[in-house]
């Protein structure tokens, strides 16, 4: 049976969207269990034995049943639209991720560029939420968000471009194919430095501790989402975790060889998932170990260290590739 291309894409998009939503729900459970282990707790346990496997579903149900409170002085249009504007780019980034050769919504020839461009769009929703809430905490948080995301998108993009240069292609499947011999995380010097820069920038782009000054609940209560409740809050939360998982997929794809791994080819998507979850757990591990740093320190780290270093790294990689030729080392 052959489907017309448009119907095929639509079917894939439907499958991926639902798979991602389910996956995101269970990634939250994974994070909670992981954090609980770090803190010598048990974590979710009673909602669905064993080990609280129904907890994400219970959370979602609870949020759906919550009253939707809208502040009287909020800018209603902006306030109501913000969670959707925030969520859409966070889900859209999965469009270009191939989960195995020929398995994905669309393997664009500018896949990485599309991912980076769309993933920075979340800031619009963030700022709308912070502004529309008409709350001082939310406003401060929105200001911080703009500061931080602009500062950290640059090193994020530069770090992500290093594997692109090494592979000589912006197409995600081509980047994975170029890692047949050697995963880029093992690529001498360039690959490793780029991976470190990528993880740090990822932390900031995803607003995780130590870079979670947006949320900063000890001073800004909950930041830009302080006025959101019920399903709108759930959408923001969903978007945040979808973005985090999407970036983990990107990291696994750019640096950890995507679906490459021992065993038959059909194990590929599983390998990919395992690697993405490992990147996610790395980020989570950092999150639950550090204290938050201050806004001026965050900007200083970005502009004084990460941006120059990643530009230099990108230039050096370019020189190296120019002399050696693209492809695996």
């Amino acid at each position, binding site marked *: 049976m052959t489907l017309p291309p448009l119907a095929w894409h639509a079917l894939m998009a439907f499958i991926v969207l639902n798979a991602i939503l389910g996956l995101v729900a269970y990634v939250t459970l994974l994070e909670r269990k992981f*954090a609980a282990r*770090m*803190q*010598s*707790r048990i974590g979710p346990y009673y909602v669905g034995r064993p080990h609280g496997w129904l907890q994400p579903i219970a959370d979602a149900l609870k949020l759906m049943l919550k009253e939707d409170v809208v502040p009287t002085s909020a800018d209603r249009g902006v306030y109501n639209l913000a969670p959707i504007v925030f969520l859409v780019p966070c889900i859209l980034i999965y469009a270009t991720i191939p989960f195995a050769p020929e398995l994905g919504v669309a393997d664009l020839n500018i896949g990485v560029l599309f991912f980076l461009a769309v993933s920075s769009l979340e800031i619009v929703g963030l700022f709308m939420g912070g502004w529309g809430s008409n709350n*001082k*905490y939310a*406003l*401060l948080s929105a*200001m*911080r968000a703009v500061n931080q995301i602009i500062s950290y998108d640059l090193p994020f993009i530069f770090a992500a471009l290093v594997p692109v240069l090494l592979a000589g292609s912006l197409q995600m499947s081509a980047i994975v194919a170029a890692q047949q011999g050697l995963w880029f995380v093992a690529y001498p010097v360039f690959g490793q430095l780029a991976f470190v820069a990528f993880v740090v920038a990822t932390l900031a782009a995803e607003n*995780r*501790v*130590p870079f*979670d*000054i947006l*949320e*900063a*609940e*000890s*001073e*800004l*209560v909950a930041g830009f989402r302080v006025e959101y409740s019920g399903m709108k809050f759930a959408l923001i939360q969903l978007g945040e975790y979808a973005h985090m998982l999407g970036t983990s997929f990107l990291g696994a794809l750019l640096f950890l060889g995507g679906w490459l791994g021992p065993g038959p080819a059909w194990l590929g998507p599983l390998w990919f998932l395992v690697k993405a979850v490992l990147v996610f757990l790395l980020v989570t591990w950092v*999150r*639950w*170990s*550090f*204290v*938050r*740093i*201050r*806004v*001026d*320190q965050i900007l200083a780290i970005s502009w004084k260290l990460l941006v120059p270093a990643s530009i230099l790294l990108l230039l050096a990689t370019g020189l190296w590739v120019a002399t050696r030729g693209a492809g695996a080392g």
Partner: protein
Amino acid sequence: MLDVNNTTRVEMDWSGPERLQMNMGPQHPSAHGVFRAIVTLEGETVVAVDAVIGYLHRCHEKLSETLTYAQYPSIASKTDYVAAMTSEFAYVLAAEEIGKFEVPKRAQYLRVIVAELQRIASHLLWLGTWCMDMGGALGGGATIFLYCIRERELVLDLFESLVGARLLYGFFQVGGTRYDIPDGWAQACRETIALIDSRIDEYEQMLEDNAFFLARTQGVGTVSRELAQDVGIAGPLLRGSGVDFDIRKNVPYSSYGDFDFTVPVETAGDCYARYKVRMAEFRQAIAIVRQALDKLPAGPISSRPALKSVAQIRIPKGEAYGRVEGPRGEVGSYIISDGSAKPYRMKWRGASFSNLSILPLIIPGHKVADVVAIMGSVDPVFGEVDR
């Protein structure tokens, strides 16, 4: 030198950079209780703080005039509920001084043991909540917080087996203590403090080897030696600013002279210095408890006859001030007795109240995120501030 006008609110016709006034509290995740700080911001920078207290006022001093010397110690613990033993201690010291009551050696040692265990428990709660202020309830701060709570639980277990209560004890009594230690308690206590001793090394490794922690604490909220003495702060804040003053050493009470311990002093005066002082105090407190357990003499635990009625303890006319070094600084109780079974007037000196007055003087100029770091390093307990 002190710019007291710094605390005034922003004027209506202000023509400088745009300012924003923001409430932190009375219901706010960073306040360790009900405290309202009206901060005026220029962007992220705080230019003025207006501190509003009084949300937890419970008429403690008036209440003490209606309760007898036998009843009030267990109410005194409710002033500073994080270090309940300390305030009971100050109250009975003042009453004993007016009445010239002897306290048996065993009771004195027991008092020292519980006071130092209380210091450990209080500092553990401080470390946890302070790190949570800086690290977030969904981040590394919560990790430290849960570790600290885990250890504090052990100390509370000790108190529970001693007096039956976990937070507000009523252990002290004019003339001695109300309870003696049960069988096996000394051994359990030794094991607990040995465990906590080893865990404190872990916290230090987690925090002091952490560049982000150092970036958040070093050079933040500096209190100069002069300012510290001007404002009259006490306890770890004062010692973090280079003033070597500890009532346990300078005005020894309840046999503190018998024990060998040092008073940690840091000169930097910033949040990190206060952290270092408190971490050293953990170790000193553990050392004191060990010595007191080793030397614990046999004998009675009270010089007074057993209580048969609440009005049994009568104190001659007079007045006295009982002062102890609590986890947060000097805790004092001034009692005026008219010869009846109740004080004529009683005044609390709460360490947190004096310490809190430093906030409007040191916060301006810092970022919003530093407000919570500084407030956490002051370690206020609002039950003691408002009383």
